[in-house]
């Protein structure tokens, strides 16, 4: 319970922060940065949230299901573009993989030598 309280307060703090800024920025991502900072500062220890974080991360796919199910009402908007969507996804994925791998490999080699 205490672990849940810590994670939820950090999440709510993130949400309040973006409401305060009147920004579209996702509050959950602000919460992630906040937790990362608190871990680095040592104000929160991984042990304080070990249970809740491992359970949430292990069951993560469960929580995506409702978002996925929503395609049953929005799929008509994709009409006539199914192949395009798949091809865009496939080609773009290869581009991202290549750009990332080559730039990291180049920079790591340069840092080593």
């Amino acid at each position: 319970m205490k672990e849940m309280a810590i994670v939820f307060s950090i999440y709510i703090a993130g949400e309040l922060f973006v409401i305060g800024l009147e920004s579209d920025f996702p509050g959950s991502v602000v919460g992630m940065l906040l937790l990362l900072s608190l871990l680095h500062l040592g104000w929160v220890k991984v042990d304080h949230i070990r249970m809740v974080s491992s359970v949430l991360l292990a069951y993560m796919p469960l929580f995506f299901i409702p978002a996925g199910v929503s395609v049953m009402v929005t799929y008509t908007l994709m009409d006539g573009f199914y192949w395009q969507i798949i091809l865009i996804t496939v080609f773009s994925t290869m581009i991202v993989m290549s750009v990332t791998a080559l730039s990291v490999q180049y920079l790591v080699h340069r840092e080593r030598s």
Partner: protein
Amino acid sequence: MIVSWTHTPVFGLVLTAVVGIFGLIIKKRVAWNLFNPMLFSMLIIIAILLGLDIPYTEYKLGGDYVMKMLGPITVVLAVPLYQHHDKLKKHAFAIIFGITLGSLSALVSVYLFSLMSGLDMTLLKSLLPRSVTTPIGIAASEMIDGLVGLTVLSIVITGTFGAIVSDWVYKLLKVKDPIAKGVALGTSAHAIGTGRAFEYGTLEGAMSGLSIAIAGLATIFWLLLFQFLGFI
């Protein structure tokens, strides 16, 4: 009779939990790495709703509660990143620069391909966050008014395809460095890519794992820039 209790949030909650856990159990039983429990459960639930003629809006009552947990899940993505931060230190610049550039290439390529294929703005926006981990992808899609369902589907296709082609891409481009292999899998194919990266080795896996949260952040920042510049 069956449908009398579908008007309450309990229906969506129970259906998601039961089918979702069933999907996770199957995932543990099958030897097929690319089996996706989320996609499986999603299709089963759609089939159930269509088969029993239950409107989506009734499922959504409970489904919305489930989605509320995506916030706390995104928060705890900081934990794996923190746990691997010692591995990040040595080549921090190379890794963060590579992820930031890779995330930009995702947005630019989706943007250009979508325009070339004649996709409308809504579809384009839904595909933009497709290379990041699902909870951040959903948040990003909501931020730019995409269709969350399409974003989730394209994220699944991305991860699955990325894990399939990584061997081939790395051979073709002569990528041998384990750090580069891991970071590129995490950046391009999120958690599914990380599963593949762990098959290469623990260093590749750890690198891929820490890249997921950084790629999510980088993508959000690039999207804000796209919005600021009026591209979307």
